[in-house]
């Protein structure tokens, strides 16, 4: 028998017996086993142990195993899965938020569009250009006009506002349309 110090590591012999070595290592161990009875015996012992372990037979499932497994999976499948619940809630929430955002954006767009389309005739040159031709005196500077002409123009502007109702939805227009500022003058006039 060879001296023990020339034998291979037991872990390597175990790996050989269980075919866990790469081909190169396996052939190296095979070559060693050809000349080492002690290592051959170790490998045989691992293989015998493996055969002994085979005696512990597997257990077959009970006849009702399949039915129970199916029932558990079926009950899970019929219940609403958590991920789809989350998905659905998320999708609903996203749809509501998207719709709300669309309403806000379209409202702002509409209001801005109207604001840029509508220009009060008294404030812009284009408004006066599109207005019906006025007598020459009405185009003179406001300071040079008589009180009757100014009052007539104010009435006409007010009537234009009433005839063009959408302008009342314009926040900027409403903010600038300070009706109350006219009241003291009216009161003053009535007092006079």
């Amino acid at each position, binding site marked *: 028998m060879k001296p023990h110090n020339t034998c291979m590591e*037991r*872990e390597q012999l*175990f*790996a050989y017996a*269980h075919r*866990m070595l790469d081909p190169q290592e396996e052939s190296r161990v095979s070559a060693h086993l050809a000349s080492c009875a002690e290592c051959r015996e170790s490998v045989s*012992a*691992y293989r*015998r*142990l*493996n055969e*002994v*372990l085979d*005696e*512990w*037979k*597997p*257990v*077959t*499932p*009970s006849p009702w*195993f*399949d039915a*129970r*497994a*199916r029932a*558990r*999976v079926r009950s*899970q*499948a019929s219940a609403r*899965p958590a*991920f789809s619940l989350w998905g659905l809630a998320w999708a609903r929430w996203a749809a509501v938020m998207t719709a709300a955002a669309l309403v806000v954006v379209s409202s702002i767009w509409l209001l801005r569009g109207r604001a840029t389309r509508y220009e009060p005739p008294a404030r812009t040159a284009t408004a006066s250009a599109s207005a019906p031709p006025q007598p020459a005196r009405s185009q003179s500077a406001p300071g040079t006009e008589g009180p009757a002409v100014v009052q007539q123009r104010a009435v006409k502007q007010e009537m234009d506002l009433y005839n063009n109702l959408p302008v009342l939805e314009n926040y900027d227009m409403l903010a600038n349309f300070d009706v109350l500022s006219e009241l003291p003058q009216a009161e003053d006039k009535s007092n006079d």
Partner: protein
Amino acid sequence: MAIDSDLELMLRVQNGDAESFELLLNRYRLPLVSYFVRMVRDRALAEDLAQEVFLRVYQARQRYQPEARFTTWLYRIATNLALNALRDRKADDAPALEEDDEGVPRVARIVDSRPTAEEQLMLSDRERLIREAIESLPEKQRVAVILHKYQEVDYRQIAKVLEVSESAVKSLLFRAYENLRTRLQPLLQGGQL
């Protein structure tokens, strides 16, 4: 007719194919029940755990990655369940047993290892000796031996199941078989019990 691979079946299960799930159930019910019986001994608990594995596979079907082998995934779920069941039982049965680094109890096992009436009918004396030898192994060694020897899972896959290196699995298996060799010496010498 070609047999569908686990991967193909699982991809179909992902798409809602109940028949493919049924095929997986038929294919793996025996290996799983056997695995759990060997791990936890209690047959009723073993069947319950095996059903739980199928349920979890179904629940997690959308998270299954085709890159991973189906059996690796299956046995990882099964092993986690088995180890949790063993820990729960150990906590219920025993007042805190001190363990060494490998999980071997320092104090003598106080779990009743006497065979139940059912086991007496089912197991021969030799089988009982083998079972007790394997049950005496530390947790990870036991998992490695059962997966390697009885479930025919190769050591590379065992490494993935246990999330350790391949060389660690080889070493784990070596130590486990050395322990078994010592404990099962009467059977190895060819003696009848």
